[in-house]
């Protein structure tokens, strides 16, 4: 049960080994944006630059765009062709905030409803966490019950202890993988002590705080406070950055593409921030911007806790970092009135 360790220089070797069984994904900027991309078999430069990806790893489980099935019409009706199952993924370097986000999304796609597309990827995947030693000023994970360098939501957890990473087996899946991964040294007591220290240091580096005590109740009380929400929404430009790139946002749209008698049904990311969201069945009930902003905030901090007993935010800070107008969820939540100002 003792933890293992690996020299940073040997990471490429390790990934190569794992590549024999998995499609290995690592943080990459090759496409022009930081995201989890298929490993090229060589490049481990992410070990130097990687803080977190811009595109969250949820994209590996809920792709921006995926084929659900193809259909063809003939005399007897429609013939449906399902896409083949994808390769088993190993996501190397996922941050604890993003790993927690996957656990949060599970509530919807695994527990409430069994989504076959999501589950085929999720169940076969291995998450190898990498402790976050340099959190951004926009990060507030520690306020959301996440520690930047500790995780129970991954299968294996790596911690930077200088020239080496300490490897902890977190889940059964992780244990099984490690049993097959030979040639690693055992960690010494000194290594364990270094890892413990590194985790604490990382934790203390997260300076942005959010007090979530009673937040769902406060939001419930302020739901009809139009003045408050209009003020909060004033500078929002209704783009989809904070939702599409949120690791816990999972809304999708479904589109058919039909060419003559053949077609494909696609699923792609959608955002409750868009004025045309849910326009397809009828109208968007949230025509005004303040209603959409309220929905986004309340879904994460009021409805999700109500339905699943967990806040749908991990404090990864992407929505703050990437917002073109610096709309800051932590400021917004801190400004929610403590008591109802309207209604009863």
């Amino acid at each position, binding site marked *: 049960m003792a933890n293992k360790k690996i020299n940073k220089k040997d990471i490429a070797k390790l990934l190569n080994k794992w590549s024999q069984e998995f499609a290995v994904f690592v943080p990459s900027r090759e496409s*022009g944006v930081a995201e989890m991309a298929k490993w090229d078999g060589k490049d481990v430069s992410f070990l130097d630059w990687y803080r977190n990806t811009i595109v969250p790893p949820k994209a590996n489980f809920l792709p921006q765009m995926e084929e659900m099935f193809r259909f063809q019409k003939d005399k007897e009706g429609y013939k449906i062709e399902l896409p083949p199952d994808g390769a088993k993924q190993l996501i190397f370097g996922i941050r604890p905030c993003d790993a927690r986000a996957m656990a949060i999304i599970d509530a919807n796609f695994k527990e409430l409803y069994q989504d076959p597309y999501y589950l085929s990827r999720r169940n076969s995947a291995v998450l190898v966490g990498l402790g976050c030693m340099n959190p951004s000023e926009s990060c507030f994970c520690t306020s959301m019950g996440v520690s930047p360098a500790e995780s129970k939501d991954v299968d294996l957890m790596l911690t930077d202890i200088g020239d080496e990473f300490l490897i902890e087996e977190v889940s059964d899946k992780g244990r099984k993988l490690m049993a097959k991964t030979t040639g690693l040294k055992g960690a010494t007591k000194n290594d364990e002590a270094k890892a413990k220290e590194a985790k604490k240091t990382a934790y203390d580096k997260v300076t942005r705080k959010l007090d979530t005590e009673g937040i769902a109740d406060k939001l419930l009380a302020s739901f009809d406070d139009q003045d408050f929400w209009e003020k909060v929404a004033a500078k929002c430009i209704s*783009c989809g950055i904070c939702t599409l790139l949120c690791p816990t946002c999972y809304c999708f749209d479904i589109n058919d593409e039909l060419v003559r008698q053949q077609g494909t049904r696609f699923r792609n990311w959608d955002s409750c921030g868009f004025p045309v969201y849910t326009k397809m069945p009828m109208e968007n009930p949230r025509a005004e911007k303040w209603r959409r902003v309220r929905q986004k905030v309340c879904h994460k901090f009021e409805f999700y806790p109500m339905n699943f007993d967990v806040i749908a935010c991990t404090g990864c800070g992407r929505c703050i970092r990437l917002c*073109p107008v610096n709309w800051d969820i932590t400021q917004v939540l801190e400004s929610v009135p403590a008591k109802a100002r309207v209604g009863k």
Partner: protein
Amino acid sequence: MLKDREMEQKLRNEARTLLEQGKVDWIIGFEAGSLKFSTTPLITKDKNDTERLVINPFIVNNLADFLTGIKGRVGIVVKGCDSRSVVSLIQDNKVVREDVVILGVPCTGLIDLGKVEKLTGKYRDELDDITRQGNKVTIRVNGQKKEFPATDVLFDHCLACELPTPKEYDLLLGEPSPPIANPLAQEKIEKLKQMTPEQRWGVWEKELSRCIRCYACRNVCPACFCQRCFVEETEPQWVFPAPRWQDNLMFQIIRNIHVAGRCTDCGECERACPVNIPLRSLTREMYDIVDELFQFKAGMDKDAPPLLTHYEEEEAEGIFR
């Protein structure tokens, strides 16, 4: 920086007075943001909020974007490019001149934090300080000072800016500043132009493959004022809603044509893009094409007819019969 402080004070006083005297219902300006070197739009009716107004090299947003969504008279803080967007909206009858009080900032260029990060090899929140002294920018990292020519860290569109000081204004907050006119501004575009069409196609395939269709480029753009964007039409469906690169390209091409003659090269589309698509390479090229073909620069003259919604009979000669 002293200049900025003075302008700031003047702006705060003026904005407060405008609200107090009921000359405007709203003030739209900038206040300090929640991140290092960030600002954020301040949209307020409250005179006490005017104390928070700021002017500094990080006032990136083109606030003209908010004008079409707001009811009432507005006092708005604009840099040169933004003032052209306001004028362009006036030309398009989207904004009534009398309903806006234009508070002009003579701009000396904005600092592109992306360039700063590349130059220093540090993330923006790891920097201690960034200060501008004329043609120099000093960046302090871990207590050490590094100096760069300002042109190394200003946004491309600022290096190309033709109107740093608003021409249309009610109050100019400082002394006019001259254009920088630095050829570096066009470097990326020139590189693209030297490629073969096949190479260029390859570049745009790669760039647009990462588009996530967040529409931030459209939503930060004051020239994109359509109530409903063509990209969201379903009958007929002009562009497939899922982010396939070909559809992403179609979206950008059509958007570019729609903002031709309205785009003031404020650079917001490129800055807002979360996945780093070099959108200005498209919009600026369109800007130059419009200038070359029609001798037209957007938002320079509020009394000039708008380019694409205006028609002279002789223009049809030889095309329509």
